[in-house]
């Protein structure tokens, strides 16, 4: 008798109807969006803050390099002594005082620049001031050697290396960023999915043990059917939750940003900074065009198909291990010793993905890890946007499926014996013995 659909349906509906599941499903995106909105709002406040920086330049070299900007006003306090200037700045409650002491020669200039302030100044402001002074000094030194400003300006060149593959396909820097974004998103999604829903499967197996219903069930269905039913049912519940998150998150994002007029994309992430740099280099117009071209360059069909296979394969592999852990222990606190061997390869995969694949998508490390079954789903998904030969994908997938079958066999063995074992905290040695029962 095939009870699989029945079991899947029960697992799915008990998960989906569970109160905490429903609450999590609808509350999480709200909380997430609220957090993002708060951060965006605060950083906007921060950006809008007006500050005044006073300049006391005793050398006279630098007085005309500080131009007022939208948020920062510079006041020139030339003529005052340092002590007087400090009193003035304190009274006016300025952000701070930049003091450039008198010097005999340009070479010792650097030692005489100092910033006074009430609180420690923000890193970006100091960096900004430093850049201005450095630039001015370089110009001064060059002028001293007889180079004119015009010559300096003329010497600047902006290089943007155009890229073209042997097949004649044109691409740009933005291509790599887009590839990284796609690969990273796919790998990270899988990672999160495994952790969240793998745990859910484990808990549901433990629940059956602690409520002692397992023997009743197991006298009607085969353990492997129950296990597969659990894995599939929970995964479907997971997909449901994920879809709701994405849809709800998207809708909320639009609603919140229109109501409060906050640009949520203002929240800076490192990736965006990379994009911004690329954007500055090319100009916004060209950038938008390049972005579309770059997405077009992605091996989309390959990406989607590979995503489905590696996602499902990787998820099933890990979730059967989670199910086996759930069967081996009596309660959740005992799971710790078995969790580490599962989490290690998963975390390793993400690290390899983030550090190595970005640097060299087809290097030895990336390639090797995209074949090892426990890390391959995440690493391969990150590599694929960069173009992986089909034979590599196929071989990796084959290895993954082979390991998956092995893992299910192993998990089913542990599961079959474990679900009927109570009161014992199993060791690895014992688990090994169970395989032979």
């Amino acid at each position: 008798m095939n009870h699989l659909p029945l079991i899947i349906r029960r697992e799915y509906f008990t998960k989906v109807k569970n109160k905490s599941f429903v609450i999590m499903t609808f509350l999480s995106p709200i909380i997430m969006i609220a957090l993002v909105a708060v951060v965006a709002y605060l950083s906007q406040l921060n950006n809008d803050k007006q500050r005044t920086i006073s300049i006391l330049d005793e050398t006279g070299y630098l007085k005309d390099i500080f131009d007022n900007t939208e948020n920062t006003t510079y006041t020139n306090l030339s003529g005052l002594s340092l002590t007087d200037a400090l009193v003035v700045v304190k009274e006016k409650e300025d952000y701070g005082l930049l003091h450039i002491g008198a010097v005999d020669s340009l070479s010792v200039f650097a030692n005489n620049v100092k910033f006074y302030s009430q609180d420690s100044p923000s890193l970006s402001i100091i960096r900004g001031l430093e850049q201005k002074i450095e630039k001015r000094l370089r110009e001064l030194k060059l002028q001293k050697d007889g180079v004119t400003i015009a010559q300096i300006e003329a010497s600047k060149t902006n290089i943007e290396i155009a890229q073209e593959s042997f097949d004649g396909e044109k691409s740009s820097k933005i291509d790599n960023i887009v590839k990284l974004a796609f690969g990273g998103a796919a790998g990270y999604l899988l990672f999160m999915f495994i952790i969240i829903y793998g745990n859910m499967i484990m808990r549901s197996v433990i629940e059956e043990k602690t409520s002692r219903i397992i023997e009743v069930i197991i006298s009607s269905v085969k353990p492997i059917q129950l296990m597969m039913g659990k894995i599939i049912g929970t995964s479907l519940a997971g997909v449901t939750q994920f879809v709701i998150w994405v849809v709800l998150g998207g809708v909320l994002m639009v609603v919140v940003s229109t109501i409060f007029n906050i640009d949520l994309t203002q929240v800076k992430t490192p990736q965006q900074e990379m994009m911004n740099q690329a954007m500055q280099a090319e100009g916004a117009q060209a950038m938008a065009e390049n972005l579309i071209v770059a997405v077009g360059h992605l091996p989309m069909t390959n990406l989607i198909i590979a995503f489905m296979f590696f996602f499902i394969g990787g998820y099933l592999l890990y979730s059967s291990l989670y199910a086996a852990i759930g069967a081996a222990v009596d309660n959740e606190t005992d799971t710790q010793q078995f969790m580490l061997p599962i989490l290690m390869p998963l975390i390793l995969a993400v690290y390899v993905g983030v550090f190595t694949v970005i640097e060299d998508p087809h290097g030895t490390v990336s390639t090797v890890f995209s074949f090892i079954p426990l890390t391959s789903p995440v690493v391969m998904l990150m590599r694929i946007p960069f173009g992986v030969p089909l034979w590599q994908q196929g071989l990796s997938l084959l290895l993954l499926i082979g390991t998956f079958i092995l893992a299910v066999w192993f998990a089913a063995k542990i599961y079959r014996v474990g679900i009927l074992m109570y009161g014992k905290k199993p060791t690895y040695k014992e688990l090994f013995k169970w395989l032979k029962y």
Partner: protein
Amino acid sequence: MNDLLVANSVSKSFGKFKALNEVSIAVPKGSIFGLLGPNGAGKTTLIRIINQITMPDQGTVLLDGQPLKPEHIKDIGYLPEERGLYKSMKVGEQCLYLAQLKGLSKSEAKKRLKYWFEKLEIGDWWNKKIQELSKGQAQKIQFVVTVLHQPKLLIFDEPFSGFDPINANLIKDEILQLREEGATVIFSTHRMESVEELCDHIALIHKSNKVLDGKLNDIKRQNKTNTFEVGLESMDSDKVFSEIKAKFEVLPATFRNLNDDIKLNIKLGEQTSPNDLLSFLTSRAQVHHFVEVIPSASDIFIQTIKNN
């Protein structure tokens, strides 16, 4: 074919531990078969093998003359000792689910559940969650789920634990009625009074081996010691006592009686009939109490385990 279930020299080991050693049993159709034994003797392993939860290392199990196969699951109803239900699932939903796992259609399961819920007066529990019920109430649900698919073979492991005497009686009557309707019952328990009350046959498993097997009455007959418990009243009890002692093997006895003159267990030899004893006694004293000592299931259990 009179035996519904036959196990032929079934063995099972877990690692080095031998849980069952060539155990054979035959459960006659329509009987209530007591599967007895101390804790850890291997009863549960045998029951799990019958339920196809574990596979035997050696030996075969036949149900209705056929080797066990997956289709037989719907012919067996099993109430395990370690039992429970999904705590956060509603009673009705849960019963339907478990019934469907046993191969019933949803509509059929609903119909039968309605019948049982009315019979046990638990109709208003349908939408309650298991965690809102008491332990005894949950046990009732569990019993209904076990018998709902009208299996040929019912296996109850400690069915009365968790029940108050009233509900235990109710369940006992249900089991007897199911037997009347043609079901065969394997019954595993440590409560010897219910063995006494219910079982026709028993098998005793001790340290992975079957040590005793047969009809309960036959076993009792084999184990009786031809001893009679007597209560006598006499004017001259000392004299009567010494006369009896001279002729028979005598042991002191305790039982409740209105008179407390002479209470004895008298063991008869092969040659003497109970009537001889009785006429011997009536000629000397007033007989208030004359009962053959029949070994209880509990006595047989303890005695057999001790001898092994």
